[in-house]
């Protein structure tokens, strides 16, 4: 549901954001399996570039950050710093069982156990590792969220509805509908 209000330049920016989300990848201490699945998204079988999804090296160029791995104590402050460098509007996807709850690393001495205890997360993807189509689905979920945020003029509407960090995408959809 594209929004046709606002100035011409604003509409152009909104169109470009929805058309081509740029993604940055951050490994916060995972085993690399999720990163390999993200690479599989880029390969010819799934080829997310045909949807305009580009993986960028710098967080300053990104709209969506994909975080893989449970967050180690060493990486927690780095993850926060990288997240702070992404310009608004920004969206975070936590990949895999580790990103949601620590996975096999839960409760270890060097782990903070979940991504959403360090930065707010918009979409969690289940699996160990998740399949590439599920990762693409998470990016599309973030794009739908982006459209809703544009229509509401910001992210605040989600907090007033009582959802700060939605644990799953169906919850977000229920609020939207």
């Amino acid at each position, binding site marked *: 549901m594209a929004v046709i209000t606002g100035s011409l330049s604003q509409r152009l920016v909104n169109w470009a954001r929805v058309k081509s989300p740029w993604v940055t990848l951050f490994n916060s201490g995972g085993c690399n399996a999720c990163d390999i699945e993200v690479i599989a998204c880029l390969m010819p079988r799934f080829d997310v570039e045909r949807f305009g999804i580009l993986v960028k090296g710098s967080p300053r160029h990104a709209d969506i950050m994909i975080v893989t791995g449970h967050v180690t*104590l060493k990486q927690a*402050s780095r993850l*926060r710093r990288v997240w702070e460098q992404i310009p608004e509007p920004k969206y975070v996807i936590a990949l895999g069982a580790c990103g949601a709850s620590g996975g096999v690393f839960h409760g270890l001495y*060097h782990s903070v156990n979940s991504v959403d*205890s*360090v*930065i707010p997360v918009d979409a969690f993807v289940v699996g160990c590792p998740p399949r590439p189509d599920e990762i693409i689905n998470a990016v599309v979920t973030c794009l739908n969220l982006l459209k809703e945020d544009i229509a509401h003029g910001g992210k605040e509407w989600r907090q007033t509805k009582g959802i700060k*960090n939605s644990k799953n995408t169906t919850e977000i959809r229920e609020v939207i509908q």
Partner: protein
Amino acid sequence: MIDPITLDFVREKIQDIGTAEQVRSNRIRITTTPGRIRDVIRSVQELLSCDRLLTISAADNGKTLELIYHLTGSHRMVVSIALELPRDAPQVPTTSDILPPAGIYERQIHDLFGILFQGRSDLKKIILNEDWPENEYPLRKDWAPDPGTFYGGIKGERV
């Protein structure tokens, strides 16, 4: 390539500074004491031509802390030098001056097990995060995280 060394050859060379036994076809274990570790490392380097350090492994068996130095050379036999340390105040002389690759393993073992390598002045954190509290050694069997202690990461309010 040199021929593989045999157990009798090892026993003849190290004599009374440790006891040798064959634990696998390609592995000879020498058991020694913390005070003699430097002598054993020197004789293994010079007499058994073990010029490479594979790793130093450490373990907590509940009663003592075990430290095993794995060395090898062009003969492809692994010589493991094992010693045991008391759990209270575990100390062992450093070998990083005669065996330079040992330095980084010693720092890691000091981080995780709290074994003090005498003669090292730079045993600063390498594996654990910089703001990890002092005197907390997470790989010891009796260690458990204290809920009141801050172990690093993000402090204060969480988003």
